[in-house]
């Protein structure tokens, strides 16, 4: 690490504190040099450590500082607890479920969508559906593999007078259906409001013994010999995939006094066939919007040329 590089880092740190603290750039550089040259600390870590020192000195929390954030596209949000800037359109606003939440909803840019939460106590301007904003200093969060951003009281909200085409984050996959997993077929869901948990032996893990409502789904594995994808077909997609309607499934289960016959029948219809599936991803699942069975003839010309040229 050259002195000039450390100098640049020192100047950036001084700049960050310029509103709060009279920081001497020589002093910053000296602290960086000590950590980097003497104690062999990587420069990112040294910078973090020196910044923390001045935060302490100024009596500030890290989230009160406007540090030079990266401006990220929504599809690139893949780490929790990062401070970033984004430009996004409010796609949807949802009903907050807790008093602590000021606003909650979905933001989108041309790469995809992400959930956002604004805390009530942060006292931010209200975001409006359909409007594009530049949001400075939001923090990323992760829950079970799904990322979101949190707006906080240091977040800057700038309304932009521009249109933004929100991209869908759908994926298209292709391969053989190598497994239909348990939990597929004719299932029952908890009828309690806002609870859609699948019942096991007539019981909901949250609400106990309830009179469930029928639903159809398939949890499948599609595999192309290189990658494995877990795919969920909802009722509509399952009916289309199997050619079996929910009424037929219920009748079949009633005749057999057993719901597992439905899953068995579905298995025999779909296992081993090739499909092209398109839909958004949720956690590790692809949620099938469209599925096409690939049962036409195949073109082998290209592979043959490759094989001959080895």
């Amino acid at each position: 690490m050259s002195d000039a590089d450390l100098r640049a880092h020192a100047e950036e740190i001084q700049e960050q504190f310029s509103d709060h603290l009279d920081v001497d750039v020589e002093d910053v550089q000296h602290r960086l040099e000590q950590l980097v040259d003497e104690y062999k600390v990587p420069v990112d870590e040294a910078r973090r450590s020196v910044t923390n020192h001045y935060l302490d000195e100024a009596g500030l929390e890290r989230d009160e500082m406007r540090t030079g954030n990266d401006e990220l596209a929504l599809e690139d949000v893949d780490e929790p607890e990062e401070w970033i800037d984004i430009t996004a359109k409010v796609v949807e606003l949802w009903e907050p479920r807790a008093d602590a939440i000021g606003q909650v909803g979905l933001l989108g840019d041309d790469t995809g969508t992400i959930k956002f939460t604004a805390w009530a106590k942060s006292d931010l301007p209200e975001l409006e559906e359909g409007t594009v904003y530049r949001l400075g200093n939001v923090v990323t969060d992760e829950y079970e593999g799904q990322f979101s951003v949190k707006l906080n009281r240091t977040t800057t909200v700038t309304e932009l007078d521009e249109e933004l085409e929100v991209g869908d984050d759908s994926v298209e996959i292709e391969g053989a259906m190598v497994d239909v997993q348990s939990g597929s077929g004719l299932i029952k869901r908890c009828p309690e409001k806002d609870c859609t948990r699948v019942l096991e032996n007539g019981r909901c893990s949250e609400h106990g013994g309830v009179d469930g409502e029928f639903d159809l789904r398939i949890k499948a594995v599609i595999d192309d010999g290189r990658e494995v994808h877990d795919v969920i077909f909802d009722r509509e997609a399952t009916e289309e995939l199997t050619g079996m309607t929910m009424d037929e499934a219920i009748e079949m289960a009633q005749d057999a006094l057993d719901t597992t016959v439905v899953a068995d029948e579905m298995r025999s219809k779909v296992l081993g066939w090739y499909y092209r599936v398109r839909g958004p991803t949720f956690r590790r699942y692809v949620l099938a919007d469209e599925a096409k069975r690939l049962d036409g003839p195949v073109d082998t010309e290209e592979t043959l040329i490759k094989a001959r040229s080895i």
Partner: protein
Amino acid sequence: MSGTPMREVARRMFATEFNDMTYVFKESDEEMAPNYGLMPTGGRANRVFFVGTLTEKEDIGDDAEYWRGRVVDPTGTFFVYAGQYQPEAAAVLRDLEPPEYVAVAGKPGTYETDDGTVNVSVRPESISVVDANTRDRWVAEAAERTVERLRAFNDDTNEYAEMARERYDAGVGAYRREVISALESLDDEPTEPEAAP
């Protein structure tokens, strides 16, 4: 993400290569560590998927039923064994009337005969009836995956190719020829049934 282990990919290979996959290894000393077959073209297989013609089936069990099926691809025969621990696959084999196009997902396994030959077979997770076009699609796919492995076989960083060179003497030339003849065989046959005269 940590937590649940990743499901193993179902590898695609022709019967000839599958039956040559006699070396089995583990990647770690842990008790539950999965077994892998070492693919002669360089790769590891804990699961396979193939489509072919079920030509024969036989219950070879003494007391309990134990089904053996022969599933044929353009290069050779996969031997599929299903007993009480594969009840669904066993039930499918019991009911099927060969010949029939079947798709099989399963685990490779090896056993040594009295004369020291190592035989490779499949413990099926599922067997299902498909059609001629699906079989052709699988042949094309297995060819494509095999070509990918053959192209990477001489890469410096290909550890499984390195292992394959150590464990198997035969080289990979035969697998390349199998790919070509398998693909050529698809062109010979009509994929749609001809209309009756």
